[in-house]
């Protein structure tokens, strides 16, 4: 496996010439407005044989650096691993499950080793999408990926599946062969605080009431002056969901949108009625530790192989909280994986990964999710 990375900056263009011109895959992550058809056509000319796979971000990861308003391209030439790309439109959140199933059905099953999935981050129910995908993928094939982002704007998200950027869709990249090695890890680093609240009214991933009161009002109360920056500021207080008596098996949910008209909040995944929700807040040290922990999990999953590439998909909320210190979490990952592992990735509106190497695949929020790859 050979890898090279380059970056496109406004006014500057691509910072490096293309050398690995016979690369089979280019992972491309960039600011929403920058991912124009022209830029992508230009990128395709530089890597004529490559499949382009990527999307819009809330920040790009290149090495140990984190950037805004750039495009990061990571070109990969696999020695043996074959690739198959598929995409599927998702007109609205209700179509998420069906879209996941349809997408998985498009991927040939034979020799399928792993699936990377990217979906537009708004108007998609990530939980349903992942369930749909899992239901149609062969047993034992893992799924990692994320929801693409749009800075802290939450207006327009894109996916790229070897074609022009798509605004309401999901893309999957199948990795085939026996020499590819995959590891993955996923950790949060948020601490729950305050009381457990019963979800008394919700529909799918739309939350209306907690303990019989407007959830949006509650967020506004807690956000104080930050309420003006909704929905982005709601990411500062994600929800830990758990069933009654199962507080240890909490799943984190991040806010994607708010609707003042019907006082609702849309989350990146299901917020089922009858479950309990607890607000969470950031803990700087634990966020950075969480990223390192995710790297350790991913590395552990690789057994003897040293990861050559690490795809980092980290939640936009972490970036909002850590701000100028955001690179500390990427540095934490690099410290675990070593200088020789190429780091690429983006800040997302949701992460997809099994929580641990053996657990079932879930949609996560507010985590650092890492997929490590190498070829024997």
């Amino acid at each position, binding site marked *: 496996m050979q890898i090279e990375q380059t970056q496109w900056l406004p006014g500057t263009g691509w910072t490096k010439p293309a050398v690995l011109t016979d690369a089979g895959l280019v992972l491309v992550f960039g600011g929403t407005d920058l991912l124009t058809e022209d830029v992508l056509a230009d990128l395709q000319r530089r890597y004529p044989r490559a499949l382009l796979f990527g999307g819009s971000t809330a920040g790009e990861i290149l090495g140990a650096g984190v950037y805004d308003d750039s495009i990061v391209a990571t070109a990969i030439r696999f020695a043996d691993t074959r690739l198959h790309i598929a995409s599927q439109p998702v007109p609205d959140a209700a179509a998420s499950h069906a879209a996941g199933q349809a997408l998985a059905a498009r991927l040939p099953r034979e020799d399928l080793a792993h699936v990377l999935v990217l979906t537009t981050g708004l108007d998609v129910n990530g939980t349903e999408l992942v369930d749909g995908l899992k239901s149609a993928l062969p047993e034992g094939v893992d799924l990692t990926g994320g929801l693409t982002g749009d800075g802290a704007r939450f207006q327009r998200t894109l996916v790229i599946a070897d074609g022009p950027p798509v605004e309401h869709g999901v893309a999957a990249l199948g990795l085939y062969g026996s020499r590819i090695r995959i590891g993955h890890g996923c950790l949060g680093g948020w601490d729950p605080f*305050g009381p457990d609240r019963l979800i008394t009214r919700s529909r799918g991933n739309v939350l209306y009431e907690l303990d019989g009161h407007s959830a949006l009002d509650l967020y506004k109360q*807690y*956000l*104080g002056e*930050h309420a003006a920056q909704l929905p982005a500021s709601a990411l*500062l207080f994600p929800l830990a969901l758990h069933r009654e008596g199962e507080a240890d098996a909490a799943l984190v949910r991040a806010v994607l949108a708010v609707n003042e008209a019907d006082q609702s909040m849309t989350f990146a995944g299901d917020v089922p009625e009858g479950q309990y929700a607890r607000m969470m807040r950031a803990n700087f040290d634990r966020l950075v530790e969480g990223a390192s922990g995710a790297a350790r999990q991913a590395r552990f999953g690789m057994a003897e192989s040293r990861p050559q590439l690490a795809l980092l998909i980290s939640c936009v909320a972490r970036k909002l909280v850590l*701000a*100028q210190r955001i690179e500390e979490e990427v540095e934490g990952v690099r410290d675990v994986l070593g200088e020789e592992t190429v780091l690429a990735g983006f800040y997302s509106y949701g992460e997809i990964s099994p929580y641990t190497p053996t657990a079932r695949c879930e949609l996560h929020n507010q985590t650092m999710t890492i997929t490590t790859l190498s070829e024997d």
Partner: protein
Amino acid sequence: MHPLLERQIRRHLGDATAIPEAMHALFQAIGEAYEHADADRRLVEHALDQMSRELTERNRELQRQLVEKQRTEAEQAALIKRLEEAHNQLLQSEKMASIGQLAAGVAHEINNPIGYVNSNLASLRDYVRQMLAVLDAYERAEPLLPDGGEREDVLAAKRAAELDYLKADVVALLDESSDGIARVRRIVQDLKDFSHADRGEWVLADLHKGLDSTLNVVNNEIKYKARVEKLYGDLPMVRCLPSQLNQVFMNLLVNAAHAIDKQGVITVRTGVEGDDVWVEVADTGCGIPEALLTRIFDPFFTTKPVGKGTGLGLSISYGIVHKHGGHIEVKSEPGRGTVFRVNLPLHSSVDEDADHE
């Protein structure tokens, strides 16, 4: 620029203009980091404040719920207790009703033979009186008989029969029998009175009459233990359920007798005080220890040996008196005796209809 950074620059560099052009971006980043940290701190402080307010509110709510729950539980407990008492009372009145019915039946059956025995006795007394008159006439004619022979025979027969004694005793026997019959009739009447002359009807009744018939019914329990002293005052008629009050009097009298170990006195007093009438049953028995005084009205509480008392008597009495709008007081001195006093209002305000059970 963040005020802290501004101060720091003033202190360490003298003037913001002293910052070299190349460092402007750095200072701006430092300023932004300060502002971000400030915003973060304000958010945490605000959230902490909100949470503390919310938790305090929830805590209050929980406390309120707890108090409410305790109140409901106490109400439930009271309700259960009342239900239990009502149940026991029902059981007891069922029992009393059957006994009453039985007694009334027996009384009715006895009444009939007693009636004709009584009337026969009256006729018999008349016949005997006449026969004695005839006999007297014969005796007066006795000296007319010649000596020896017939006369000796008559005299011998009179001696053998102890005729003088017979003549005196036959009258005494008839008097005693009449007394006996009268007593049986009174007992039968008392039984009828005691049992269910009223059948749960509220009537104006003479409590003294009730006390007397009850004393007669329980006479057997009392007579070997105690002498009964009746100190009745002047009582007006009282609106009540007489058979139920009789039950109260019976319980108090039997308890009094049981409290007396060998020989004692049971004093029954009555009187009027203000708007109440009262009936006191005092005994010279063993008394009740103070610790138990609060429990004696509890259902199933008894100090009597197993099988001797149900522990229901006083609780039922309490219930009955309560139903009449009255109350029972008890004073006791261990070793000296106990006084139970039943107070009943003369002008009862209880809803009589509600108590037709």
